[in-house]
């Protein structure tokens, strides 16, 4: 039993599925057969009774809901307002710029003469479906670490969808926030690496040099977004010859070994492929030519990616929105990924009604 915020009393949700019985030594025994409750005789309705068995089953998850009350609210992570509030100040909505940084740095700024990659994630249209997570996992050869490792907090996802709720636990407002490496301009991970395994490239991407990484994990500690993932064990398959699993890997992406750090690369390999095409045709990479895996999978087009050096690119234009904000802006990390604050348009007639869906 795992009660979610906002779950109505007396309702139990069961995910449909058969459970896995023939999925190899890793997959076998994972999941449960929900069709025990749903036979073809009575596909829509069956009388059920729930009773305590006295035993417990360990559930692990990568998605925990966090309250935006108390300290959560004061951190200004999710910025949200109503359509009315937005219309009151369309140029500078009050709910967007609640915390700001004061740029101060000992190190000079980087200069970008060619491309400067950037991303915007629109929280208004994000529905929290997790398609980006799956797409990223497939694209970037991200190892599946299994239940035990997830239970101790070692999932490897490069992108995750953070869930926050606000308001009464029985009737909360939910917020989803896709979270991946913010590709900070002033990345806190870079100066703390003793071997220079995480560096800024000439297009502003914070890159990981896997074969230089010795695994101090200082970068992860110093990352305020905690988007770095460490290979605590040999997660990727070390196969001397091709196996089913290794054949499923994306050949354009390195498979990481034990003891190195990894994280989102803005789909570096897709940028490289586009660059080769463009250079062969002696032109610049056009806007929309590079589509990251998460962006391609997003059903609501909440993720916009492109060259921010080009003022005409869709990402540059989106970043000029009044709703655009940088996460943890006051830390002066100057992220390349920005968010569009969530604008809600609640129906005042439904507000306060029992069992409101959110």
């Amino acid at each position, binding site marked *: 039993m795992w009660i979610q915020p906002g779950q109505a009393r007396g309702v139990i949700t069961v995910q449909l599925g058969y459970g896995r019985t023939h999925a190899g030594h890793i997959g076998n025994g994972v999941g449960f057969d929900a069709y025990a409750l749903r036979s073809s005789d009575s596909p829509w309705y069956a009388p059920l009774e729930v009773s305590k068995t006295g035993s417990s089953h360990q559930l692990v998850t990568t998605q925990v809901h966090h309250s935006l009350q108390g300290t959560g609210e004061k951190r200004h992570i999710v910025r949200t307002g109503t359509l009315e509030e937005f219309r009151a100040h369309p140029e500078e909505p009050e709910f967007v710029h609640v915390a700001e940084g004061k740029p101060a740095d000992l190190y000079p700024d980087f200069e970008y003469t060619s491309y400067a990659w950037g991303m915007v994630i629109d929280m208004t249209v994000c529905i929290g479906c997790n398609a980006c997570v799956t797409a990223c996992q497939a694209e970037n050869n991200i190892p599946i670490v299994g239940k035990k490792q997830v239970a101790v907090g070692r999932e490897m996802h490069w992108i995750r969808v*953070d869930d926050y709720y606000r308001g009464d636990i029985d009737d909360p407002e939910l917020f989803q926030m896709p979270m991946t490496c913010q590709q900070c301009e002033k990345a806190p991970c870079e100066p703390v690496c003793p071997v220079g395994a995480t560096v800024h490239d000439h297009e502003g991407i914070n890159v990981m040099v896997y074969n230089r990484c*010795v*695994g*101090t*994990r200082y970068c992860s500690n110093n990352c305020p977004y905690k988007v*770095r993932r*460490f290979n*605590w064990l040999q997660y990727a398959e070390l196969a001397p010859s091709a196996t089913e699993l290794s054949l499923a890997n994306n050949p354009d992406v390195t498979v990481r070994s034990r003891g190195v750090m990894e994280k989102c690369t803005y789909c570096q390999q897709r940028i490289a492929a586009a660059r080769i095409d463009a250079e062969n045709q002696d032109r610049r990479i056009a806007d929309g030519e590079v589509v990251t895996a998460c962006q391609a999978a997003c059903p609501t087009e909440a993720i916009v990616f492109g060259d921010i050096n080009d003022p005409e690119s869709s990402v540059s234009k989106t970043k000029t929105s009044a709703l655009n904000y940088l996460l943890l802006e006051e830390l002066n990390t100057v992220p390349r990924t920005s968010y569009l604050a969530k604008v809600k348009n609640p129906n005042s007639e439904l507000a306060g009604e029992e069992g409101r869906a959110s």
Partner: protein
Amino acid sequence: MGVITGKPRRQVTEINRVIARGQSYGAIDDVVDSPVLAGPLRTPRWWWIGFGIAMSFLAMYLVSVVVLIVVGTGVWGNNVPVAWGMPIINFVWWIGIGHAGTLISAALLLFRQPWRTTINRFAEAMTIFAVVCAGLYPILHLGRPWVFYWLAPYPNTFGLWPQFRSPLDWDLFAIGTYGSVSILFWYIGLVPDLATLRDRARGKFQRIFYSALCLGWNGSTKGWQRYQRAYLLLAALSFPLVLSVHSTIAMDFSVAQLPGWNNTVFPPYFVAGAVFAGFSMVLILAIPLRKAFGLEGLITIRHLDNSANLMLATGLMVLYGYSIEAFMAWYSGAEFEKYMIFNRIFGDHWWAFWLLITCNGVAIQPLWFRRVRQNPRALLVISMIVAVGMWLERFVIVAVTLTKDFLPSSWADYRTTFWDWSLYLGSFGLFATLFFLFIRLLPSIATTEAKELAHHDAHHGSDYLEEVRAQEAPYETPVVKGAQA
């Protein structure tokens, strides 16, 4: 810091002496050297038992290291966000232990504190062994320990260089310097004593062993002069290390931007904490050692009293550090900082915080009383409590801080595993094995300096002057055996 001890508050009485009355040069050599020179069969039973226990813990250490290297960092409980856990806690703990050795041997020598003389040798040994235990941790802690040398600036075919902005690279130099200077200083100090052992050696093997180690020392005036110069120079060289090493370690944390780490008070407060932990370890080792070897005449109650005084003083500085941390968190007005201190005091690991305040703050208060400071048993108990408290302090700073940082979505708990603890307990085995070998093979008290002290006591001490006044008789020169002091 050594100056804090001040003058003894009462008349020179038996209990306040840095060396017992009427020690002769030969007697000092006898008491210190005879257990070292005794044949293997004459090794006391307690030594064999202790050495056996130490070796079994060392075996556990080696097994833990092999498992770690074969399986991976994942055998520990670390995760994201707690990417640093037990290994770094233990690293900082061990490196702190070493500080008392350097303070006693270098700083107190330069401040001309004669009471350091009989405890400096084993305190220095303690420093070196603690640095060995500490220094292995950052290497084992790496995801790929076999390429640890990539942190060092050496010419290589990759054309790569370390990244000097990282405090971890400063660590490499801090620990490297600390280790090498400590070993040099310790060894230079040992040379005349090794020569005495050579001269007193009974068997052939002993003679060859100590002859090789004493570098052909012949006790010439020139030799003594050079020795004194070198010793003083090395003392001057290692004195800054008392302040710099732990400051550098502190910067591993204060350079990071995490709430609870990004703190300018860290370097001085870490140094105070290191000396605090170090003196607790000195007492943990000295109290049984003086009993076992019958060294009460050389390691006197005065030594214990002074060490306890230093422990009290540095303990209060550490306590001040804790309060400044909390004050600054509130004063900053930053939500992240405020929540960090709230989480420490009332969060999931509240017990660690309150236990640490009890161990480091409350437990040392009896040291205000001379009766407690001069009671070896009470001191032993308090020192052990402090050692635990200092471990908890690092647990709170390293692990508890990491569990909850900026984004609530990445907050997670930290649970240690069997291998976390086996490596830690095993490192005691490494330390204890080295220490048992040291007290068996080398003089655990600097006899040369103890003889200087005896000379001073006999010729310039208040006892002597009183004696002269009372008897109006010339002082009788003590019997001189072995090397001249």
